[in-house]
């Protein structure tokens, strides 16, 4: 355990290098982008240079305006996720557990699934107007189906042998659900959550262009009116960062809730 150069290079190879490698490609892209803008190959109106974007980001952050927009957008996204997600979870649990519910509800839901939420925008404007409820509806709809389908599938694919064993040990009803069926369906449900978190941002971006008074989409649309392409890019950057944050969150959830799973254990050991 001496601090020789050998152990230092070991640390470099085992810890730092894998952390830096994923960042290599974005850094290269940024560098070539910056160079292209500096040398005038890329017009400012097409794509501003990265440094201008950073400056715009800084100005907006300092003025507090950005945080307001971020808060509004995040609130919309999360409330839509909560609404659509909980409804999808409830319905998925219902149709997964009861054959009668599946017969009644599933085919209808499968038909609805194939309608892209964004294609409904004109109808949504007619029904909800252009205020918050329209955006909430769209996000909820987009979030609904991945969670529903994966919950349904998760419940159905719980190991029947485990259910039989648990029944023979006297588990039934709610204890059976809580100790066997729900944890067994959890990996699939979390996959659905991952998908939904991705859709959440996509739908929100478009929903915020309908018409808004606040939010990242509003900030971006405004900037477009004034040809502030750097602010437009800031908006896009914010969406990307928030999406990454949501993904990290869902990964963290998986890592915690599924730490019994052999697949996640080896990942944790390698990390």
């Amino acid at each position, binding site marked *: 355990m001496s601090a020789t150069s050998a152990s230092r290079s070991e640390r470099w190879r085992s810890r730092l290098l894998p952390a830096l490698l994923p960042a290599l490609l974005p850094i290269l892209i940024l560098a070539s982008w910056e160079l292209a803008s500096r040398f005038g190959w890329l017009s400012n109106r097409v794509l501003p240079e990265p440094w201008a974007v950073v400056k715009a980001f800084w100005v907006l952050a300092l003025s507090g305006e950005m945080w307001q927009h971020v808060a509004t957008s995040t609130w919309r996204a999360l409330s839509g996720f909560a609404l659509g997600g909980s409804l999808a979870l409830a319905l998925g649990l219902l149709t997964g557990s009861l054959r009668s519910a599946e017969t009644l509800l599933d085919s209808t839901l499968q038909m609805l699934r194939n309608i892209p939420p964004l294609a409904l925008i004109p109808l949504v404007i007619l029904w909800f107007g252009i205020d918050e409820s329209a955006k909430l509806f769209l996000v909820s709809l987009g979030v609904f189906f991945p969670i529903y389908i994966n919950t349904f599938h998760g419940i159905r694919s719980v190991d029947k042998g485990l259910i039989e064993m*648990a029944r023979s040990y006297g588990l039934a009803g709610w204890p059976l659900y809580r100790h066997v069926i729900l944890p067994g369906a959890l990996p699939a449900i979390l996959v659905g959550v991952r998908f939904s978190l991705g859709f959440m941002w996509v739908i929100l971006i478009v929903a915020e262009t309908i018409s808004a008074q606040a939010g990242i989409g509003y900030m971006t649309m405004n900037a477009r009116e004034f040809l502030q392409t750097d602010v437009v890019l800031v908006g896009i950057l914010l969406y990307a960062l928030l999406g990454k944050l949501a993904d990290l969150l869902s990964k963290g959830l998986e890592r915690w809730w599924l730490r019994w799973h052999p697949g996640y254990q080896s990942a944790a050991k390698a990390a």
Partner: protein
Amino acid sequence: MMSYELELENAALSGLAAPHAGPRFVAKAPAPSETPRPANGATIRTEGLSKSYGERAVLHDVNLQIAPGEFVAIVGRSGCGKSTLLRLIAGLERADAGAIHFDGGARAAHSDEIRLMFQDARLLPWKRVLDNVALGLDPKAGNVRERARDALAQVGLADRADDWPAVLSGGQRQRVALARALVHAPRLLLLDEPLGALDALTRIEMQRLIESLWQRHRFTALLVTHDVGEAVALADRVLLIESQQVALDQRIELARPRSHAQVGFARHEQRILDRVLSQSDADAAPREPGATHNVLATPALRWAI
């Protein structure tokens, strides 16, 4: 209670006559000359038990009597219905005809005193070993974790209480499953080929473990196995299921702990194996002790696995 007495086909067992399937066979209760055990185990009596899957009859008119504290092994070819019989007794399946009586009473009253061990351990992967062992224990009854730890200690896995099942080996998982069954202090333990998936050495250790725990707790044990040697090593009685009936009830009166080198072990094992494989004893010439039986000579080779 002792109203079921039919004659035993002793002639078939002595090897003098050709064994044949067919006659209705009722397993007899143990002879009174046996050393009495403290009655901790459940009594099982089945009458006229029948089960079919669709058109295929698996069991027909099975009549059994098992005394408290007995260790009974059920052997037979694959698909003969031995697992079905066990699952009927466990209550996992419903019989088409006939009845099962425990301790002379109705069935449902005893379902929490019956525990089942499956061929795979069936541990809940999302619970730690200790929580798996504690499955089904009533928290209101108090000190659940101590009882679970105690059961784990009996199978020698007290130090693995906080592990996830995924990191255990197959033998260790089966031991945890055994602890899980034992923590409820069952009066009847049903074992459905629990050692089939284990390697030979682990299997021997598990046999010894099961035997020692059975001797300690004195529950009634019903073991379904395809391994005749395992049946002879563990059981007081070996039943053979053939043609939807109990075709053989062989009492094994060897001293415990048994070993393959014991006098009489090989004889019992060979006799039962012959019966399972339906070796005809037309050649009644006495064989030298130790000569291996020529299994391949039989013209009708049927699969026993």
